[in-house]
């Protein structure tokens, strides 16, 4: 069921060893029903064969053959035993050669040996890509697309065939011409050939159908599928797709007017197609080099996610486009683990559109950093390209990347690949630790930088200046606080004038005087320190102190005056006059202090 690339001579040597004479098998195709499905842009040929063993001994295998003309286009060949129920037993295929005959041959291993005279019904499926040739090769926008198929009327087989029918299914009713071997009957979209009786082995007769086929002739000329596994619970899938319309080339202008107004204008062009993603796909994106392709739609169904992929422009014959589609999958659905053993089971290639044809596929499987003992099980042989390393967020020694490529794939190749590897779970801690370490270093550097002095020159003057400034600042605070105290005293006095409570006045005075004393002492100690630093500001502070003493005196006097007023020793008018002169003096002193402070 596979098509290995037998380009290597050593491969040929191996195969020649397997050559043997087929006729000796004594197998006969008792009854063959062939269906050639040409309704899409690929040819799907299915043949139901009733095998009869007429030989002398039981056989364990039979040979499948593909015509030499069709072999280059062969994308897939598979055989299955037609079971009674729905499920068919899929058979194993191995490529082989037959001496003296051209074409490709596959040896099919039967599930059980076929006894002499016994019959077995097998189903053979062959898919051919790029076999439908547009003719004419260039059409205008208004024209319909006609294609030619050239195949074989008979089943190409190493065994003689007793009876055979061939049914050709077409895409439309319009048929330009078809070969008329054995007077075939033509119904709406099908041509029936046969039955042909007693066809010799390896017989060929050209079947040619020229008919209208407007199905999308899309081909993926290359696809790169990147699967990135993260053990933090996510599998990211990204497909980069180059796509072209391989039908008849568009000749002449493309008129948007006709395309919009006439429904059959550009009938063979491709407007959109559907891509089916796994049901758990999230965060789907569809973009290209210049940004998001805004024309797509996403539909979440029960068992899948359907993306209506609409290229930026309709694809006419010969036009191509390029895009990237990507999504995330939860890893629990695809990643299996047992201790340190992990197994990833994912589709090697996924659905892009129905009846897809992929000319060249590259798969890159990015495993987590630290994955070892990697072992890959592919459903069909595939070329391994040397492993690479991939670096992304917080990687240190790189993630192993498995790279594989294969040409000419169709829908039947959507099968699972299994990757086994071991991974030490402790390595999961590496990434958080890296982040923590980076922040630690950052904060530590800031701490070091702030705490330590890195200046290369020692500037004593600046240091002194800084010291002085800090001292003067404290002086300023204290002086202001002291000025505040005076206002507080005034308040106390005022309250006293109203309440006439000598006890409160005295207690307030005591507290305030104590505060004042401590403040004055603090300031004078600071003044001493200033002097010690050799700053001339000390004198100014001294002056401030001196002025403050005067203020204090004035305050005391206004205090006494108030006491006298309350005691009734002075007249009110006299008191007010007195108070006025006192306060004006005080204000003057305070402004002088302020101006002194300003120069500090």
């Amino acid at each position, binding site marked *: 069921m596979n098509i290995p690339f037998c380009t290597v001579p050593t491969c040929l040597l191996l195969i020649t060893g397997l050559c043997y004479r087929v006729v000796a098998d004594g197998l006969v195709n008792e009854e063959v029903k062939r269906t050639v499905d040409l309704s899409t842009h690929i040819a799907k040929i299915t043949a139901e064969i009733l095998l009869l063993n007429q030989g002398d001994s039981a056989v364990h295998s039979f040979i499948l053959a593909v015509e030499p003309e069709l072999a280059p286009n062969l994308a897939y060949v598979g055989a299955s035993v037609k079971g009674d129920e729905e499920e068919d037993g899929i058979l194993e295929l191995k490529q082989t050669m037959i001496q003296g005959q051209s074409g490709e041959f596959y040896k099919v291993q039967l599930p059980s040996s076929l006894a002499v005279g016994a019959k077995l019904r097998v189903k053979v499926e062959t898919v051919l890509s790029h076999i439908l040739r547009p003719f004419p090769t260039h059409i205008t926008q208004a024209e319909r697309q006609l294609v030619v198929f050239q195949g074989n009327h008979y089943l190409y087989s190493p065994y003689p065939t007793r009876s055979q029918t061939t049914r050709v299914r077409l895409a439309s009713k319009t048929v330009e011409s078809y070969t008329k071997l054995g007077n075939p009957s033509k119904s709406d979209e099908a041509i029936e050939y046969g039955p042909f009786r007693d066809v010799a082995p390896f017989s060929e007769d050209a079947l040619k159908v020229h008919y209208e086929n407007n199905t999308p002739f899309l081909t993926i000329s290359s696809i790169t599928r990147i699967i990135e596994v993260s053990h933090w619970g996510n599998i990211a899938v990204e497909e980069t797709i180059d796509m072209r319309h391989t039908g008849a080339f568009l000749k*002449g202008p493309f008129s*948007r007017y006709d395309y919009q107004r006439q429904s059959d204008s550009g009938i063979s062009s491709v407007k959109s197609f559907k891509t089916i993603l796994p049901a758990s796909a999230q965060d789907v994106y569809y973009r290209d080099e*210049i940004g998001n*392709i805004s024309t797509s739609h996403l539909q979440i169904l029960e068992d899948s996610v359907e993306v209506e992929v609409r290229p930026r*422009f309709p694809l006419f014959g010969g036009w*191509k486009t390029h895009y990237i589609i990507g999504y995330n999958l939860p890893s629990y659905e695809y990643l299996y683990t047992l201790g340190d053993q992990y197994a990833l089971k994912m589709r090697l290639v996924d659905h892009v559109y129905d009846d897809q044809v992929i000319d060249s596929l590259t798969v890159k499987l990015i495993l987590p950093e630290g994955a070892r003992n990697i072992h890959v099980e592919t459903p069909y042989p595939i070329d391994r390209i040397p492993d690479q390393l991939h670096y992304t967020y917080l990687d240190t020694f790189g993630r192993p990347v498995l790279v594989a490529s294969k040409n000419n794939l169709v829908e039947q190749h959507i099968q699972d690949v299994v990757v086994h590897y071991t991974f030490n779970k402790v390595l999961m801690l590496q990434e958080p630790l890296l982040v923590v370490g980076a922040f630690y270093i950052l904060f530590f550097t800031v701490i070091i930088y702030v705490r330590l002095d890195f200046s290369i020159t020692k500037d004593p003057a600046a240091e002194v200046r800084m010291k002085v400034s*800090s001292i003067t*600042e*404290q002086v300023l605070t204290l002086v202001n606080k002291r000025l505040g105290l005076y206002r507080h005293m005034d308040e106390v006095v005022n309250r006293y004038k109203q309440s006439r409570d000598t006890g409160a006045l005295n207690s307030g005075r005591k507290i305030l005087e104590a505060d004042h004393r401590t403040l004055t002492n603090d300031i004078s100690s600071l003044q001493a320190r200033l002097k010690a630093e050799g700053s001339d500001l000390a004198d100014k502070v001294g002056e401030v102190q001196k002025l403050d003493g005067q203020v204090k005196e004035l305050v005391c006097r206004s205090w006494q005056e108030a006491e006298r007023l309350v005691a009734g020793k002075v007249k009110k008018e006299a008191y007010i006059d007195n108070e006025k002169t006192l306060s004006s003096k005080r204000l003057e002193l305070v402004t002088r202090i302020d101006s002194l402070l300003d120069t500090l």
Partner: protein
Amino acid sequence: MAEQHTATDGKHKASPNAGGSVHGNSRPNAVGGGGKGGLSGGLAQPAGWQSLLSFTILFLAWLAGFSSRLFAVIRFESIIHEFDPWFNYRSTHHLTTNGFYEFLNWFDERSWYPLGRIVGGTVYPGLMVTAGLIHYVLNLLHLTVHIRDVCVFLAPVFSGLTSISTFLLTRELWNQGAGLLAACFIAIVPGYISRSVAGSFDNEGIAIFALQFTYYLWVKSIKTGSVFWSIGCCLSYFYMVSAWGGYVFIINLIPLHVFVLLLMQRYSRRVYIAYSTFYIVGLVLSMQIPFVGFQPIRTSEHMAAAGVFALLQAYALLQYLKDRLTKQEFQTLFFLGVSLAAGVVFLTVIYLTYTDVCLLYSSSYAKIHIPIIASVSEHQPTTWVSFFFDLHILVCTFPAGLWFCIKNVNDERVFVALYAISAVYFAGVMVRLMLTLTPVVCMLSAIAFSSVFEHYLGDDMKRENPPVEDSSDEDDKRSSGNLYDKAGKVRKHVSEQEKAEEGLGPNIKSIVTMLMLMLLMMFAVHCTWVTSNAYSSPSVVLASYNNDGTRNILDDFREAYYWLRQNTDEHARVMSWWDYGYQIAGMANRTTLVDNNTWNNSHIALVGKAMSSNESAAYEIMRSLDVDYVLIIFGGVIGYSGDDINKFLWMVRIAEGEHPKDIRESDYFTPQGEFRVDKAGSPVLLNCLMYKMSYYRFGEMQLDFRTPPGFDRTRNAEIGNKDIKFKHLEEAFTSEHWLVRIYKVKKLENREPLEHKLRSIVPRQKYTSKKVQGSKRPNM
């Protein structure tokens, strides 16, 4: 004061984002109650609350600025916007894929066909190098970020740096509170956002940061007179030169500042050191940029700097001599020097008049009279509306800030005043220079707001606090050791405030405060609204809204560009009007004839001539230019007003400028002097290539039942020429909504088909030999 801290901090928590402006008054004081520790206490305190608060506010300003620039990314996608950014993106891409030297030596053969363009020598590489460097560093750390995302988010990230440098500059000019306010303003002000939304990957995005940072370092070096800061200023200036042509603003403003300082008798050794260092090192550094080259010593816009440099040297020399000489000697020397200087100036003026200044005048003349410059919408003069639109309340408050600065003038406030005045002038001349005005408006408004809040909020605090708790107001700069400058400090002492308090009741204060807060709130709302509505459209992707609010995305530009990229020959040459040149090069990756780097007027005129000629004349031009495809923008189907027919008159004018014999603007008007596309339009217009390409097959199209077929929605007219046939062109692609139409230029036929009917020659003459007849027949 300790209580004030907690109070502001609490407020801060309540309104973390927009409320950054509230904290104009929260200039935390260096001195607290526990300042016993002397030196260590004086140092530890400012590094505590104050820096934590500033750090938080700046961080939030950065965050707010960053996130308010993300509208376009959230609504659309991470995409490069508009036109010029596409070129920047393309060259950054080239830089990251091919390396720095390849980029410097890049000859782009894909633009200005057949001339090409030396990209490395004709760009300011700062932007590309910055983005490339960030990308390189990130990839070095295995952060696999695509270069497109680096480019898209570069401007929003730099807006944070801008607000930090604005903070630093304002702090130097006024105080920390004003600095924080200014940082918050610049983070969200629309005048700056307009050039720095995510995706607008343009020089201005990083240049405003460089501008502000250079000014900060300049003020710093003027204040300290230290060579260290001057060198820092030069490096920042170098970055600015590498990033934007607007560096000319710096190299004129700084000399102006020095000059005015000299006039104001504010010369000091600091000014001398700062400017001499700046001029020499800055000059040498700026000449390292290939695009700038020797311009700083050649062109007239750099001459002011050189003149001031010379003047400063002379002044310094005089000052020096004044100390050394007697008064008599000095006077003689002075007169000698003055007469010598006058002679030199006279000669220079004469020399310049005949060389450079002529160029200066002619270039400014060109700016007015060459249509290609006038045709760009951002070169139009600014309207009053756009001042308010871009700056909102700041435009009203910044004169107040300016007044505060002039009232309490010192060296650096002279600078900011000059900055403000010149920026206002330039912003009035050209819309796009609004950008240089915005930072200074933010700073001065912040100063105004800060002073108001200081006055009104600060007093309230005091009133609530018992007087004993009162401590000395402000003095944040003491701790950093900058003691030389007293004028910068608005010191209010208890007594002064007592005086001020008399006139203001607590009600007035709270009303004023509330009003101010309301203004700031409205400003924040306005900024968000403008950003969201006016400045967050990628203009590559259009969106329309249905009645039910659902959105349709019109992606025609990218559709057509991508078609070009995928389905034309790799070396196909696409002719379009120059607006789309960068986009075609960036998105379609095809060769263009003209692009937004409008360095060659005659080439553009040739394209304009092709567009405005009739088909056969245009075909000859297109053949001579090897054109394969012609791309035009047509908005008639969806009513897109920025299409090529609406720009068409500029094409005609530019073409007329170079080819006055072939193209005349008056031919495209009706006799009444109207520009009409309907039947009454001038026949020349109705048959020119642009008209035919725009309306090809449009005459058959009926958009809805109320209008006749061929009704142009943009110009609300039924087109005049419905029967359009092409001889040398064919429609190659039209996008879904007809917005972009691409025509293919056919190759010459192998044999020219005859247009007229063949003449049937009846062989009358008997003497015609059969041989001759026979040879003629195949031709018939």
